[in-house]
Each structure stands twice: as C-alpha cells, then as structure tokens.
C-alpha cells in the first residue's frame, strides 16, 4: 500500500465496487418506474378520450393552439432557417468532391421534409411547450387549484388536459409544414449564393425529388410528436408533488422525457411509415 493521500479540499470518490444485486435492483426500479409512467400516460390518454366525448372545450383548445402554435412560430422559424442553411453548407462541401454541389438541394429538401423538419421542430417546441405545460399544471396542483376544479364539479382532464393535448397534436403538423418551407428556403439562399445556381433550378430539384408521400411521412410523424408533447407535459404537471421544488424538477423531467420519447418514437414511426413512402 502506498502512502496515504494528502488531505485536500476535494474528497475522493468512493471506490467503484461492482455489486450485481444492487445493479439488478437499480435496473428493476427503473423498469418499474418506466412501466408505471407508461401506464399513467396511457390511462390519461384514455381519460382524455372519455372526457372529450362527454364535453369538448373548443374555446380552451383554440387558446391553447395560440400558445402552442402561434407563439412557437419564431422558434420554429429560426431553427428551420439555420438548420436548412447549415445543412446546405455541409452537403455542398461534401458533394463538391464529386462535382455534384449543384444537387445539394435534392438531399437537403428530402432529409428536411422526412426527418429534420418534424424531429427538430418537435424537440425544440417540445422543450418550450412541454416545460410550460408542466410548470403551469404543476403550479396549479401544488396550490390546490386542480383540487378546486374537481371540488367545483368540473373535470380537470376535460378542462386542462384535453385542450392542451388536442392543441399540441393539431399545431405540430402546421409548425412542421412551416419549418419545411423555411428550411428549404434557407437552403435555397445558401445554395444559390454559394454555387451560383438559380432559385428556379433549386426549386426544380426540390419538386422533382420530394413527392407527396415523403411530405406526408414527416407530417404524419408530427401528429404523434404533438401528442407526445401534450400528454407528457400534462402527465408531468398533474403528478407534481412537493411544492415549488417539485415544479422545478418536474419541468426538467418533462423536457428530458419529451425529447427522448420523440427520438425513440421517431425511430419506430420511421420504421412503420417507410414501407408506405
């Protein structure tokens, strides 16, 4: 054994010991936690369906569409424009080696409408909207406002959850369509200025490359992404406990969960939808 280490301001981490039983228990707890969450989200979805059939709050849904859709326009616009321009720079750089920089528009437009437009928009809007929903409902939960809704004879799911889930589900495809247009326009600006092609040539490439089924591939995925954002945000908010600290940690959890769910969901949706594209 060597000499003991001198004492300093930093404590040494305890040595890592491989403990199979502890590891198995930790994995088991995570698995149970995940299944409970999945069950809660599924049950909330079921309650949304029952509640919406009983009474649908159109006015509240429209106001949520304003918050989720219209107010997410700037973040969608900026993200799409810059991602479109960056992708064009990257593809031009790669294609130049093969003398094909003229055709960057084909690659950018196809990858944008099928994948990047829906996924990036969903992750960014999901962070903004999902966190907002969780914080709002969580604050209502810790100040007993959700109990008050029930005590006054109303249904919190119908009043709070259904409008948000429906608004997110319907707003996301619109945002994705906007992202597609903005992203491809950004790509066109870079492609035409850097390579010297005309906007018409660029648009011809886009139109001849992207067909309706590829456009719909992205749009269909965006409906699901919108649903994920709405339901995860609401489920997170309704289950917040522990005062303002709970609201903070719940909001963070929602952002992480929404992003991961969108990416995992994207994989499976792509797998299902590709044969029809």
């Amino acid at each position: 054994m060597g000499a003991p280490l001198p004492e300093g301001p930093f404590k040494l981490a305890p040595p890592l010991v491989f403990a199979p039983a502890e590891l198995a228990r930790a994995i088991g707890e995570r698995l149970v936690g995940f299944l409970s969450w999945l069950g809660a989200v599924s049950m909330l979805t079921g309650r949304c369906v029952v509640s919406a059939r009983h009474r649908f709050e159109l006015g509240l849904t429209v106001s949520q569409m304003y918050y989720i859709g219209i107010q997410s326009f700037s973040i969608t616009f900026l993200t799409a424009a810059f991602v479109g321009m960056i992708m064009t720079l990257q593809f031009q750089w790669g294609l130049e080696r093969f003398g094909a920089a003229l055709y960057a528009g084909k690659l950018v437009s196809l990858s944008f409408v099928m994948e990047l437009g829906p996924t990036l928009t969903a992750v960014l809007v999901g962070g903004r909207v999902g966190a907002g929903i969780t914080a709002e409902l969580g604050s209502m939960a810790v100040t007993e406002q959700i109990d008050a809704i029930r005590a006054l004879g109303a249904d919190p799911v119908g009043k709070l959850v259904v409008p948000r889930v429906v608004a997110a589900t319907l707003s996301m495809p619109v945002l994705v369509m906007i992202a597609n247009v903005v992203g491809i326009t950004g790509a066109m600006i870079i492609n035409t200025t850097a390579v010297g092609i005309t906007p018409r040539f660029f648009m011809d490439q886009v139109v001849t490359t992207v067909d309706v089924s590829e456009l719909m591939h992205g749009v269909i995925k965006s409906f699901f992404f919108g649903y994920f954002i709405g339901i995860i945000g609401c489920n997170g908010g309704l289950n917040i406990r522990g005062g303002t600290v709970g609201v903070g940690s719940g909001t963070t959890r929602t952002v992480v969960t929404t992003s991961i769910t969108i990416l995992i969901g994207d994989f499976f949706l792509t797998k299902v939808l590709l044969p029809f594209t």
Partner: protein
Amino acid sequence: MDPTANPPAREYAPGDPIIRFRDVYKAFGRNVIYTGLDLDVFAGETITVIGGSGEGKSVLLKCLIGLLKADSGSITAFGHEVTRLEERDLQQIRLRIGMLFQGAALFDSLTVRDNIAYPLVEHSWKDPALIDERVGEVLELVGLPGVEKMMPADLSGGMKKRVGLARAIAIHPEVILYDEPTTGLDPSNVKRINRLIRDMQDKLQVTSIVVTHDMASAFDISDRFAMLYDKKIVWAGRTEDVHDADVEVVKNFIAGNIGTA
C-alpha cells in the same frame, strides 16, 4: 331542475346527521393517516376539527368530497356512500358541498368574476346577466362588492379567502368545508373571516365543517369540536364542554401543550 333557481328544499331537519365517517382507514404509502376514524356531522351546526399539523385534518375534508379515496370504511353524505361513487356521480355531492381551500385556490388566469362564475357555468347557468347578478350577490355577502374585474394576484390574503368563500357559496351549497380559513391572516382579517363563517350559518342555514389549529377562532365559531389525534377522532362534543373533556390530549391541546407546528 332549473339550476339557477334558489336552493332546493332540504330533505332533512336541523340536527339530523347528514355526514357520517365510520371506521375510516387512510394511508399514503407507509404514512398511515387514519386507523378507524368515526365522526358524525349534524345539519345546521358548525363543527371544528382540531388537531396538530400532519394529523390529517385536511385529508378528512378531501375524503368527504372524494378528492381523496379512503382505503376502507364508510363515508356517507346526504345518505350517499361517497367511497363507492364514481367521479361523475361525485359531482352531484360536490354540488351540495362547497369548499374554501387553505390558500383559497383561486384560478390565477381568471378574474374574480370568472372565478366565482366557474361553478355556475359548470352547472349549466347559461344567462350571463343571471351569472353576473349571482356573482354580485355573493361578493356582497362576503363584503367585497365591486372587485369583479380584479385578478387574484391583485388581492390580499384576506380578500382571496373571501373570494374563495364567495366561489364556494355561489352554487347554494348545503355544507361548507373550511380548510384552515384563518391561517396566514392578520388579526383583523381573522375576525372578519370568523364573522363570515357565522354569517354563512345564520343567513344561509348551512352546515359548516372547519379544520383549524387556531383555537381562538375555533371557540369563536364552533357549536361542536372534534379532536383528531393519533389517527382517529379521540373526542367530539359541544364547545362549552371542551374544557371539561375527559380526554387528556384534548385538555393539553386546548392549553397549548401539544404542538401545532
């Protein structure tokens, strides 16, 4: 039935038991709240449930209107077994029981008018003029005329409680639940809220269940006391008998020897 009509005739006489808790068990995980709680509430009385913090006083109120489910035992309100009712059927019970929450629980995004109108709209009041009239009436009752357009954030703590009370009574409840109605208020607002609780009983002939650990207020407003201790009701009786209670913890609590913190 016209929902905007005056309160319907009541099918019980003053002094009839209208709410019963029998052998109620409730736990949150390993945290056991009740182990066989019994309590009767009689029509027209104001009963105050006293007990230290964390004894489950607020849980009692929430179990009564089905916001929380008892694990076992029986809770009846107006002859209906609350523990067996589905959420939709519970709404009929909640129509008859108003609740003032500890922090008033006003909806931040709605004006005072819309907060008070909320239960009215939920229960099919369609005419905005009638709704406005009722909002004005209940605000007058709680001594806050003319605040309809204010937002909850603009109200003081005492005003929030009074608006919360106005919202609770808007739909003509037969029972009002008060969860710590005087907590966090200055002495003048405490007096005002206590007077309002008495006024509600006198003017509206409602039954009141008050949960508090504010003993001065409890003596001011109560017809009866019930002491919640060690996961059950250990004593219930008339206010004038509480000093002679034969249960040691009641005497100690009244004397301030059992902590409320």
